[in-house]
């Protein structure tokens, strides 16, 4: 069974191991199952814009979104190359639309609005260039994930987001997606009052909660570790200064001390690029942390659907019961409206009763149809959702394995750097 969905490489343009091209060539199917196979999408060049509106100045960042068709045969399906500017709030609009419209799909999350799990030197300001750069990279990943999804990538609004400069917002609102969003109240009722919730979605919910807790902890400690590691390296820089001062009162040891001091400075400044790379690792984990929300969202939507199904079922049962009671000649309960009516005004005549039974039978037929529909819909919903959950799981395993591998490789690099610096320092000390 061929894998239908194809998944994008994690991370921004910087990391592209050679083997990716090899795999891409080898695994290209004959039919295009996702946008990403024939289109290149980039998010770049963040710029500051200012709207001088009535009272306040609205300053915000826009990102350049470019697309380019990479497969000759598909040229007809899209313009050759496009580019336009979008700001973060438009990304949010796109995501809200997708989330409401595709209730069975785990929608990729957006990068965080505010910096979280920061350490002393990490940028927290929205307009800090480092923060903006990391956001840009995450936004690109967001689009690529959508573009690689078999279903999501065909959405017209999504295409419009990337290619339609004017009138896109109107197009989104005209789909009236907001009305399809489940009310919060319903969602809460649904989660509490289901009689027969599908165990599998319960498990997914639990998993999402655990995932959130686990990743939170990892991010929390990583931030603290970054703090300490930063301090350790910078304090080593103080050796450089004292070596310099010491070398002034020495003869033979003077030069070696000064050279060694230089390497202490190198050690102190080596931590900055290292920690920047580590931020990337943290960002990738943060994406999966946000994915836990997407998972819970899909579970909630299932619960609403199941809720509707159970209500349809309840409705049918109620109507059937009512009819049965009428047929047996009993009025439905002494305290019901009709019970009171019959007490006050006398029971129905046989003709009235026949009429009522006929009406009920109509209603029952209707309810049966509705129940059948609801059952079918629910089944399809469950199928689709579970399928996407499986896709997500596979993607997640692959992504996280890669994230951890890259982290390990990064550590290896750091160790090698440490060895190099200390070996140079050692060579200086040898000459003392």
């Amino acid at each position, binding site marked *: 069974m061929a894998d239908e969905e194809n*998944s*994008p*490489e994690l991370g921004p343009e910087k990391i*592209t*191991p050679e*083997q*990716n*091209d090899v*795999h*891409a060539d080898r695994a*290209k199917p004959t039919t295009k199952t996702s946008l*990403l196979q024939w289109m290149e*999408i*980039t998010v770049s060049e963040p710029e500051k814009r200012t709207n001088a509106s009535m009272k306040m100045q609205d300053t915000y960042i826009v990102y350049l979104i470019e697309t380019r068709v990479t497969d000759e045969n598909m040229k007809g399906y899209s313009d050759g190359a496009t580019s336009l500017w979008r700001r973060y709030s438009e990304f949010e609009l796109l995501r809200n639309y997708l989330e409401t419209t595709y209730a069975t799909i785990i929608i990729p999350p957006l990068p965080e609005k505010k910096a979280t799990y920061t350490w002393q030197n990490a940028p927290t300001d929205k307009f800090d260039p480092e923060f903006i750069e990391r956001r840009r990279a995450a936004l*690109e990943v967001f689009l690529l994930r959508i573009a*690689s999804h078999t279903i999501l990538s065909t959405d017209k609004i999504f295409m419009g987001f990337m290619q339609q400069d004017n009138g896109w917002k109107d197009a989104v609102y005209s789909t009236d997606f907001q009305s399809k969003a489940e009310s919060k109240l319903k969602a809460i009722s649904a989660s509490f009052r289901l009689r027969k919730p599908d165990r599998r979605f319960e498990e997914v919910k639990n998993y999402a909660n*655990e*995932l959130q807790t*686990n990743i939170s*902890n*990892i991010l929390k*400690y*990583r931030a603290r*570790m970054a703090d*300490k*590691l930063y*301090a*350790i390296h910078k*304090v*080593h820089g*103080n*050796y450089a200064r*004292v070596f310099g*001062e*010491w070398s002034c*009162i020495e003869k033979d*040891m003077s030069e070696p001390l000064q050279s*060694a001091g230089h390497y202490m400075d190198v050690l102190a400044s080596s931590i900055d690029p290292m920690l920047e790379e580590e931020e990337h690792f943290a960002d990738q984990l943060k994406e999966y942390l946000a994915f836990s929300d997407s998972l819970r969202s899909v579970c909630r939507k299932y619960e609403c659907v199941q809720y509707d199904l159970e209500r349809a079922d309840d409705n049918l049962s109620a109507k059937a019961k009512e009819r049965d009671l009428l047929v047996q000649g009993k009025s439905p309960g002494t305290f019901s409206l009709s019970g009171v009516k019959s007490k006050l005004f006398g029971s129905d005549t046989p003709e009235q009763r026949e009429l009522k039974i006929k009406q009920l039978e109509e209603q029952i037929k209707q309810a049966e149809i509705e129940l059948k529909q609801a059952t079918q819909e629910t089944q399809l919903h469950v199928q689709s959702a579970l399928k996407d959950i499986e896709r997500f799981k*596979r993607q997640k*395993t*692959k992504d*996280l*394995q890669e994230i*951890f*591998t890259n982290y*390990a*490789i990064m*550590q*290896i*690099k750091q*160790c*090698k750097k*440490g*060895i190099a610096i*200390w*070996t140079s320092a*050692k060579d200086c*000390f*040898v000459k*003392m």
Partner: protein
Amino acid sequence: MAEENATPHSVKDDADLDSSPTKAADENVKFRDPLLSGFDHESDDDGMESLDLNASIKSDQTVSRSSSLIANFKLDEDADAETKDLFIVVDDPEKHTSTLESYITFRVQTKTNRSEFEGAELSVRRRYNDFLWLRQRLEETYCTHLVPPLPAKHSLKRLDRFSPEFLRVREGALQKFLTRLADHPVLSFDKNLFVFLTAKAWEFQAHKKQGSGIFSRVTDSLHNMGASYMMKNRPPEFVVMHEYIQTFGEKLGVMDRISQRILKESTEYLTELTEWAPCFMLWANSEDKLKSGLLAMSKNIEECCKELKDMIDSTEDDFAQPLKEYILYTESVKGVLRRRDAMQMEYDMIVEELAKKKEEREQIKTSDQTYSIGAFLGKDPEDVKESKREKLEQQLVDLTQQMDMLNDRLVVANADLKADMERWHINKQRDMKEIFLNMAERNIQYYERCLEKWENTVRDIHPRNENAEDGIIVSS
């Protein structure tokens, strides 16, 4: 020594050992990490590894003896090596428990051609307090010589006085102390040292009780501090020494503070890292395919924690502690310099006194004693003059004698101190080099070990049967 231990067979084994991790890495990992495949083992590592493997089989005793010998040989690097005739080795720590206390003794072995050692007991056991006593006596006896330092009595980090690491470090420092004494042209002939090296246990205890040196220590402190400040005509070489020691001591202090800060931050980093490992393990509980990768991360982080802890401990033992002891040593050098200044002060004062008296004598010759107290009391003015003159003459003789004696003492002290300072500078250079070399090597070792662990993790994150067909990897 490496040749002794490594047979041709074991070297070959090591060569196999070295190549196989790389091979295994290649087989298990689907993708080729350029960082991994570029990894080569230098031939030096083969030699090092075989030495380690064999050493671990031997008993602790043998290892400590060989390490002491190595320590001894290392210090022989200067020209004195040919003239050395007194070799001392400290090893074999043993715990003694009595009703009152428990303590450690070390074996002190002496090897020499010197005649006074003939027939003497050449292997004794001594405890730290015995070393302290010896040093105290030496400082009192040779107040213008530099007496080598002892390791600190207590280590702030290591609370267990009986832990093998603590004993190893202490043993090395005691070894250095005795070796430096043995190399000293004057101190090595000291009687107290002889007793220390040769007396049996009860003999030694008896000897220790004789004579307390309390009085001489008291005259040391305040009096000498004052003297140093007023020093005007200090010989230039001692001016240089004073300034050098002052600045050197300061810089050592700064380095000590830096290393303490680094140790503090490193310990806090270790705490966080220790909390990090279980996060991955907990996560593994809720995963299926990802389980092995997460467990690999967790295990690796735990191992890195161990490496970090080792490094922190040995930085404390082999860097921070020696640095602190050198600071104390610097203080004791300052003390010796002050004592020399005090001697010079005494001498200078006598010279001044002598000049004054000579002046007085000249004055008396031409003075008129008519109105002196003696004349007032009825004596003949000429007699008064004569008696005063006699008294002065006597004083001059006494003072001249004193001056000569002090001058001799000063000249000797200056020569001693100058020679000792030169020796001190050479030792200091060697010691500093060793301290910093060790620090660099320890760091290198730490990174090398962590590097190995992370390489293993890369291999372990991807279980063997995982294939990459789950998706196209697209470059963005």
